């Protein structure tokens, strides 16, 4: 009998020991890496090299080169998120669209504002985070006249002691993180030709990658790499024109027949139209350190009137993979050949290791494109593994996986003299620039996107440098269901939506996923919401002063606790009706968006404030 008793005690001891270590581990910083944890469960995992474990800082808008926007801090969980409260706020004094996320590096928060693009450094160690220094670049005011979708700025990046950011009037600047002194300023874009720069630069491998905006102004798109130390241009790749401009050489291997051929950047345009053909780069760049390859998308072809530019209009509305050192293109895939509805393809590109059955995994990229399809593509070749609609689409039948070509619905192409009605998704697409977040914990991609349709009439667009080159009249309205925004939790492996949260107003704010199993996002009338990453249940919300179209971030403060920061300042294309005081009586205002958000001016006013939340001490 005693032997049994002794056995029992031993077993209990072992269990306690294991439990103890397990509990201990839970708190200990070194957890089983999420990758191994998720891998075993057949989920996609962020690319190893491109997503180092979280060090509590937030040094670039996408959090990491794989663009996961996932914070490894887990202090805020479903249990305690309800008790989140404001730790401090910071008002930038600007009222334009506030899209840039604050950066946090070594207990200093760097805040980038829309025009006039001031840069503030806040010392987080002191109570109320007073500003250490302020950098005022004074960009040219006239740039606002050629910024199609609001004088916004999508953020800065920190690298090697410097803050890199772009100015609306086409300059890229490097600022010393400590002193706030300008290290170098390089002029890249010319506002006289309608070019501006609004994107957040990506800094990698000693290079700063910057692209221009102006698809609506008949601008020719490009992506340039500057040397991080000196600001000199290392290489510059155009999106249209002959192969030598597009840096297409022997290393270029297009995945499909539609993108193979010489000088497609000229042959797929009517004569001379490639010089004013758009294809600008104003969205997100991802980088795979392992293969030293950058991935980015190009914007819509110009003008919106498709009849004026017959042909596929290469290399617009597609994804480029380039070598970061030389800029030589590895492959290009055109998501929307001969785009009809201004469906740019600049959305964020998430680099993941993708399970393809029987335990094998391939380096892939997954991306919710603006044309409404959630693409899963092999990173090495660009071949499309699958493309399923994540929003309501009635203008495309699907993507033919054999030829990779998008199949449009006949009869929906806008021709001069006869409007086309009920185009879903509308011009801003199923999701515009606001990036989604990928949580390796749940393996889901949280997509804050739109549910808008539109009527569209086109006519001959007249090109005058520095003025809009659109040639289309658009009126947008809510899609089926009457709700104008949706947050979709999308399983990239099963390629279907796990849950959807309908939002009344269009969702124009990027998402943030945290290890604590929470997803944060904001609405255009100012609600900052936290939902359960697994079920989508609303756990906590806070009404900020203005609409939220900026990126929420999570960082570890000087006291070791987890802080959540979110910029609040309505604007951008969707919020222009408020930030630019447009007249709601004209439905075609703001290139047709006014008609979809006529009620916004009565529900929210402009602003420009960063809110930082934390759990009560």
């Amino acid at each position: 009998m005693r032997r049994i008793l002794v056995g029992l005690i031993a077993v209990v001891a072992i269990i306690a020991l294991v439990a103890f270590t397990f509990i201990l581990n839970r708190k200990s910083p070194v957890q089983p890496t999420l990758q191994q944890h998720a891998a075993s469960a057949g989920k996609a995992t962020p690319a190893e090299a491109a997503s180092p474990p979280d060090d509590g800082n937030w040094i670039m808008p996408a959090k990491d080169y794989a663009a996961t926007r996932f914070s490894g801090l887990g202090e805020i969980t479903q249990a305690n998120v309800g008790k989140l409260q404001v730790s401090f706020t910071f008002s930038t004094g600007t009222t334009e669209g506030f899209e840039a996320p604050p950066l946090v590096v070594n207990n200093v928060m760097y805040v980038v504002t829309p025009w006039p693009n001031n840069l503030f450094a806040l010392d987080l160690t002191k109570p109320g985070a007073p500003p250490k220094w302020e950098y005022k670049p004074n960009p040219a005011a006239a740039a606002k006249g050629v910024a199609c979708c609001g004088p916004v700025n999508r953020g800065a990046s920190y690298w090697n002691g410097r803050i890199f950011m772009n100015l609306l009037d086409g300059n890229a600047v490097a600022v010393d993180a400590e002193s706030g002194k300008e290290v170098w300023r390089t002029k890249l874009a010319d506002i006289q030709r309608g070019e501006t720069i609004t994107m957040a630069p990506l800094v990698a491998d000693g290079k700063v990658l910057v692209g221009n905006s102006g698809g609506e102004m008949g601008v020719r798109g490009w992506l340039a790499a500057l040397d991080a130390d000196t600001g000199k241009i290392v290489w510059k790749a155009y999106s249209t024109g002959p192969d030598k401009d597009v840096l297409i050489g022997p290393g270029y291997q297009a995945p499909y027949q539609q993108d193979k051929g010489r000088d497609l950047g000229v042959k797929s345009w009517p004569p001379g139209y490639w010089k004013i053909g758009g294809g600008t780069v104003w969205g997100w760049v991802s980088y795979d350190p392992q293969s030293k390859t950058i991935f980015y998308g190009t914007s819509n072809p110009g003008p919106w009137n498709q009849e004026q530019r017959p042909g596929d209009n290469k290399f617009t509305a597609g994804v480029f993979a380039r070598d970061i050192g030389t800029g030589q293109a590895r492959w290009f895939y055109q998501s929307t050949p001969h785009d009809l509805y201004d469906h740019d393809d600049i959305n964020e590109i998430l680099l993941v290791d993708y399970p393809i059955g029987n335990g094998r995994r391939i380096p892939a990229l997954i991306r919710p494109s603006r044309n409404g399809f959630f693409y899963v593509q092999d990173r090495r070749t660009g071949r499309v593994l699958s493309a399923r609609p994540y929003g309501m689409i009635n203008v495309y039948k699907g993507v033919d996986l054999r030829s990779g070509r998008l199949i449009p619905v006949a009869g929906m192409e806008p021709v001069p003299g006869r409007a086309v009605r009920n185009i879903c998704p509308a011009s801003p697409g199923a999701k515009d620039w606001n990036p989604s977040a990928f949580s390796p914990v749940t393996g889901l991609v949280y997509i804050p996107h739109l549910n808008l349709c539109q009527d569209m009439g086109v006519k001959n667009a007249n090109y005058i440098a520095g003025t809009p080159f659109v040639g289309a009249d658009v009126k947008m309205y809510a899609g089926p269901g009457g709700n104008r925004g949706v947050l979709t939790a999308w399983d990239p492996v099963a390629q279907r939506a796990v849950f959807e949260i309908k939002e009344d107003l269009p969702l124009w704010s990027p998402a943030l996923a945290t290890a604590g199993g929470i997803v944060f996002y904001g609405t255009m009338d100012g609600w900052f919401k936290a939902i359960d990453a697994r079920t989508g249940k609303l756990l906590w919300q806070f009404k900020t002063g203005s609409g939220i179209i900026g990126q929420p971030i999570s960082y570890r403060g000087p006291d070791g606790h987890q802080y959540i920061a979110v910029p609040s300042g309505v604007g951008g294309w969707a919020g222009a009706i408020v930030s630019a005081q447009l007249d709601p009586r004209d439905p075609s205002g703001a290139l047709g968006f006014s008609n979809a958000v006529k009620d916004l001016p009565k529900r929210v006013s402009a602003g420009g404030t960063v809110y930082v939340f934390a759990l009560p001490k």
Partner: protein
Amino acid sequence: MSSRFRNSIWTLVSLALLAGCDREKSNPRGQPLAETIPDTSPDTVFPGDAKPRPLDPRAADYEQNAFAIAQGQQLFGAMNCVGCHAHGGGGMGPALMDSQWRYGGRIDQIAQSIAKGRPNGMPAWEGKLTDRQIWQLAAFVRSLSGQAPKDAVAARADELSNTPPQTQTKREPALPSDSAQQ
């Protein structure tokens, strides 16, 4: 029917009809070639009770002339004004159909904004458009906020329907600068 009564009826009728007579004058030759844009100043303080420049007399033949407003409407589309100002609601550029004017809502002030440009991004069209075209554009911009007479404007254009018909648009309240000089 006393003749006096009959004569008064006749004069009254012809007067009423005469009012419309120069609304339609489509004078393609235009004013003498030395057309210029007056350098009038925006709405601001005029120190030492100096008087602001009175309204240019040519304003009337543009502001009420149906031909000038129609030409202005076609130029508003062709010269890409629609790209920034939409059909009066605004977008990149400010709204033109409301009563808020940063640089003055009088026709000659609008003409100067078009010709010389404005610092926040309004391009300067002098040299890219003839002065007559700039005056026609200014006349159309005035009609966007209902300042033009209702029988001189077009109810709609042959395009996607947008703003309510200008023939029914309420006249925006006149601003001090407008009323002071007119």
